[in-house]
């Protein structure tokens, strides 16, 4: 325990370091959405909601039925069912993971030039998440930590058994805490390639230790936040695997196949939503002003007008934004419970509607970050030729100059608003389907949807408002 005292200052310095680069990696080139488009987004979302309500007025669907199309007859669909294909994917995953860590330790520490920053933040956390939303939970197969453990088990011919029974009460809380730390590092950690590698090394050690103690099933289901995150996103995919066959299904329908099995999963989804919104909000003139004039005043009294004080302010803002998003959800669900006079426990009710928030969370993410793939994603063309910054030119692309002018503001605006409206429409639609399956009376189902609709509209307008706010300079 005494040793931990020596580690904490080091962790603190890593989390709240001195600023090292004026403009960080991942700079956005988007303009604030114009006022008329903001109005359109809001009006469009509300108008579409009423049409959805009209659709559900006379609808009763207690069971979930949806069309599927068997893709297994096509040659290309047979590839993902072959064992050798998975082995190749797993090897690629482990190689890229190792490369991410090694390039951070051995390459340049400039975030704009190191291979590992582009690969991890842009290709993995953004592009791979969007691919997951298209084709399903590939992460559960290629997870490099899981693969390493499984191959190790096969090599030594011993199955790792849990030494401590995973406490059920913990549920998804470890994943939520780790996800929170991850976002905190992303937003205020001034991450550098070296620190990224260090954090991934620490996370690897944590994974192996925890798997040794609690077993791999519990860790990868409840604690590994990457697994929880990608599993949630994969529910969007229009692809379904069933008994070795691949089916095409309506997108987003996977979100209705099962309910959130614990309150902590709701917290995870709400944090997905709030953290993206907060990232956008803190970069706006109004957002930064509010933070400085409220939380900033408190932290500066305690810590003085320091860089640390500003970082603590931003961190507290992340927590408060999460609590606000959660409060709105719980408050409106309380109203839903009251107006429907439902006898179901509150926890069960709030868990039921958890996944109907995912389309909005995903839309927030797309609207906020998708342009980064087009701009920062180009760095990969250059960096792949010289991942260690040793002066190599493996693919003759080492001199590629990133063109940051590829994103037209007009297209970016329209797509951002289109993502938000689409996310809203799907969210409202899914919530109605959940209500019809959950409540025995049609009247109660429809009543429950009035506060739910208010919630969706609040979240959607908040997302649009953040996109339309003037962005902080400097």
């Amino acid at each position, binding site marked *: 325990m005494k040793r931990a005292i020596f580690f904490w200052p080091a962790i603190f310095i890593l989390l709240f370091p001195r600023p090292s680069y004026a403009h960080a990696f991942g700079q956005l*080139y988007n303009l604030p959405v*114009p*006022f008329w488009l903001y109005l*359109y987004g809001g009006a469009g979302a509300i108008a*579409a909601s009423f049409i*959805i309500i009209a659709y559900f007025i006379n609808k009763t669907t207690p069971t979930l039925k949806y069309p599927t199309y068997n893709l297994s007859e096509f040659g290309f669909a047979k590839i993902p069912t072959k064992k050798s294909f998975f082995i190749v994917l797993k090897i690629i995953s482990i190689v890229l993971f190792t490369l991410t860590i090694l390039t951070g330790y051995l390459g340049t520490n400039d975030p704009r030039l190191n291979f590992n920053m582009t690969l991890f933040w842009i290709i993995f956390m953004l592009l791979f998440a969007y691919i997951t939303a298209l084709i399903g939970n590939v992460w559960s197969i290629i997870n490099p930590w899981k693969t390493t453990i499984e191959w190790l088990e096969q090599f030594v011919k011993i199955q790792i058994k849990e030494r401590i029974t995973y406490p059920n009460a913990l549920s998804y809380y470890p994943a939520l805490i780790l996800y929170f730390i991850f976002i905190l590092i992303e937003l205020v950690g001034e991450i550098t390639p070296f620190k990224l590698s260090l954090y991934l090394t620490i996370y690897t050690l944590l994974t192996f230790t925890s798997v040794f103690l609690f077993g791999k099933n519990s860790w990868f289901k409840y604690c590994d936040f990457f697994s929880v995150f990608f599993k949630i996103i994969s529910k969007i995919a229009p692809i379904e695997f069933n008994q070795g066959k691949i089916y095409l299904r309506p997108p987003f329908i996977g979100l209705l196949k099962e309910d959130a099995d614990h309150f902590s999963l709701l917290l995870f989804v709400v944090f997905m939503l709030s953290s993206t919104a907060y990232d956008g909000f803190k970069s706006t*003139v109004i957002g930064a002003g509010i933070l400085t004039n409220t939380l900033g005043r408190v932290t500066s009294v305690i810590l003085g007008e320091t860089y640390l004080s500003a970082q603590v302010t931003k961190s507290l803002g992340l927590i408060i934004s999460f609590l606000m998003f959660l409060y709105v959800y719980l408050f409106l669900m309380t109203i839903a419970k009251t107006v429907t006079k439902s006898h179901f426990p509150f926890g069960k009710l709030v868990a039921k509607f958890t996944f109907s928030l995912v389309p909005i969370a995903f839309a927030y993410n797309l609207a906020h970050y998708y342009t980064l793939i087009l701009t920062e994603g180009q760095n990969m063309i250059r960096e792949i030729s010289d991942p260690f910054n040793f002066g190599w030119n493996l693919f003759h692309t080492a001199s590629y100059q990133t063109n940051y002018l590829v994103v037209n*503001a007009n297209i970016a605006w329209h797509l951002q608003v289109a993502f938000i409206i689409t996310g809203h429409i799907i969210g409202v639609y899914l919530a109605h389907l959940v209500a019809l399956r959950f409540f025995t009376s049609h009247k109660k189902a429809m009543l429950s949807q009035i506060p739910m609709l208010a919630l969706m509209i609040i979240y959607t307008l908040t997302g649009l408002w953040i996109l339309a706010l003037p962005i902080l*300079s400097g």
Partner: protein
Amino acid sequence: MKINPAVYAVLIVITLVCLFYFLKPKTSGKQTELLQSTPPADQNKTPSPKENSKSFDLTIKDKKIGNGQDVFKVTQGDDVVINITSDKPEELHLHGYDLSQEFEKDQIAQLKFNANISGRFSFELEKSKVDLGAIEVSPK
């Protein structure tokens, strides 16, 4: 009466298209009012020699903007001129367009470019790595 779900989907699309048609500003080339809290950039603008050219004065004091204006707003296609004066020699770098302009102490230097791509591009003091502000290029 049973109505096909596709009818509702079509209704949503028609509503969204109609709303878009009615809310979209009819005049092109003029930027619509944004949710603003910063003063309009044009206030400190010096008279333009041409209609599609915009000129800004950027005074740097102690690695900060001296004249208060840190966001310059232009329209796509404008010829932009930034007149830089500073109390120290440095280099101004405009991201995205990837342009640089060195300048000496108390001597006016000009950064000229055609804002042919829309978006938001920050500029910084390259050597000191200090972000100063941004140029917002609105689409036509």
